[in-house]
């Protein structure tokens, strides 16, 4: 496992010290986890959920939801009804 690559996937900046430390600690965990390779799981289905519920739906009827003011109250940066963030789309030249 390349911890710096995985950190990029996870959108997580790592300092040099962290990268070295976590690489070591996670390599150790992965050694431990290797034991699973010994299992014969060829005839086994994966369990995603122990108590299988499927297609849990409700009637498509609008019901009261979270008040917008309450939902926006925790936003770090606001502009009117919007949450302000750094530029997402590159400017066209």
């Amino acid at each position, binding site marked *: *496992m390349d*911890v710096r690559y*995985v*950190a990029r*996937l*996870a*959108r*997580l*900046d*790592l*300092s040099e010290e*962290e990268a070295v430390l*976590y690489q070591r*600690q*996670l390599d*150790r*965990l*992965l050694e*431990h*986890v*290797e*034991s*699973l*390779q010994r*299992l014969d*799981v060829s005839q*086994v*289905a*994966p*369990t*995603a*959920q*122990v*108590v299988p*519920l499927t297609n*849990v739906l*409700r009637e498509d009827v609008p019901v009261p939801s*979270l*008040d917008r003011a*309450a*939902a926006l*109250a*925790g*936003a*770090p*940066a606001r502009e009117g009804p919007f*949450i302000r*963030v*750094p*530029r*997402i789309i590159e400017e066209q030249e």
Partner: protein
Amino acid sequence: MSAPHEWSATRIAAAVNAGEISAVEVLRAQQAQIERMEPEVGAFLSLTAGLAQEQARRVDEAVAAGRRLPLAGVPLAVKDNMCLQGTVTTAGSKILAGWVAPYTATAVARLLEAGCLPVGKANLDEFAMGSSCENSALGVTRNPWDLRRVPGGSSGGSVAAVAAREAALATASDTGGSIREPAAFCGVVGMKPTYGRISRYGLIAFASSLDQIGPIARTVEDAASMYDVMAGHDPMDATSLPRPVEPTARALRDDLRGLRVGLVREFDTKGLGVEIDAVYRRAYEQLAALGAEVVEVALPHAEYGLATYYLIAPAEASSNLARFDGVRYGLRVDGGSVQEMYGKTRAAGFGPEVKRRILIGTYALSSGYYDAYYVRAQKARTLMASDFERAFAACDLIACPAASSAAFEFGAKGDDPVAMYLMDYYTIPMSLAGLPALSVPCGFAGDGLPQGRELPLGLQLVAPLYEEARLFGAAHAYEQATRFGLDRVPPVLEGVR
């Protein structure tokens, strides 16, 4: 003459409902105790006095109007990964420091409706990741039985609050053992229901296929009553079971006649040291003395539990924690671009254990590794669930330790994460199988400590899916016969450090 903060939830509710004491008076006594204990124990990240007062008044009005509430006037600690509207809810993390919840978790709302008084938000390992509460980014909680030791985790604050009589009840959550292990460490009762029994709406998610809310109390009866209030289908949680809830508080037993109790071959306690081994042997003998037929069962894949869990749980966590990106709530560290903002915010906001789990989880789900790690772990999970099915053909309940040791000292696990993960050895298999399980006090371990300073140990009982009534029933019989959690109080209550 004992004071209200020492009473059980059952006794408080009966007294308030009968008009013998007001909820406001109960609260006053409780808050005085919190003031005395907090400098030593540090169970709470924040106190919610205003809310508690409002609730107390509401309860007193309801009782005066002739209503009877199941948990009338019972002081409640709420684990800080559960939303309570208007309160700071942090999940023990800097990334949510100061965040105010705009709604209330269903389980908590049901407790408030039943008359509970929310006294404060309890400390936890950050995002419920940990077995000692040392991973909290926002506070330190100490074990009321020995302030140099951890209360266990991740629900350390919840169990410490109840053990120190700072609340009669506490909510907690369990993903791989986070209710049962700390309950054992602090000499209280902690229970994790069948997956889906209690709504996860409003519980800040760690691993969605494993997380469950459960009760912490000083007696089995109290825990059962709390479970009865919280459990049941919730349309806001698509994984909540549509099954009706069989009441448990009225199904408590005095003996174990007619029950077969399975002892797990792979969980032999010889390796835990002479003293702890003796405590568990005595506990198993006590179950037999109460009329249970004790049999041996096997969980052949138990040894793969840790590896399975430490792939599945972090994988699910890496997905659940992707929402903490600095955009809509919580901490934001500015960056020139969105990517920079994400990277810097998450770097600053998450602690080391959370980062480790996000990394290993992301890796287990990444292209090229998904089958070898995540899917394989899910298949191992099936094998473990089948082990339990087979075991429960031969017995009605399984008995085993809730943890491999008593509470350890701060820093004892060093900087090797796997050393800490091993604390979950006995609790993980049940979580993977979604089974209801609890910890009930079963004795003390001295381990060279002075007399009267011994540390609690917990007996874990496990039932088949949906058999919470059987689980609580048996635990009650054991508790009443042995009284380990009932007769002895933590030294901190007597001013002993």
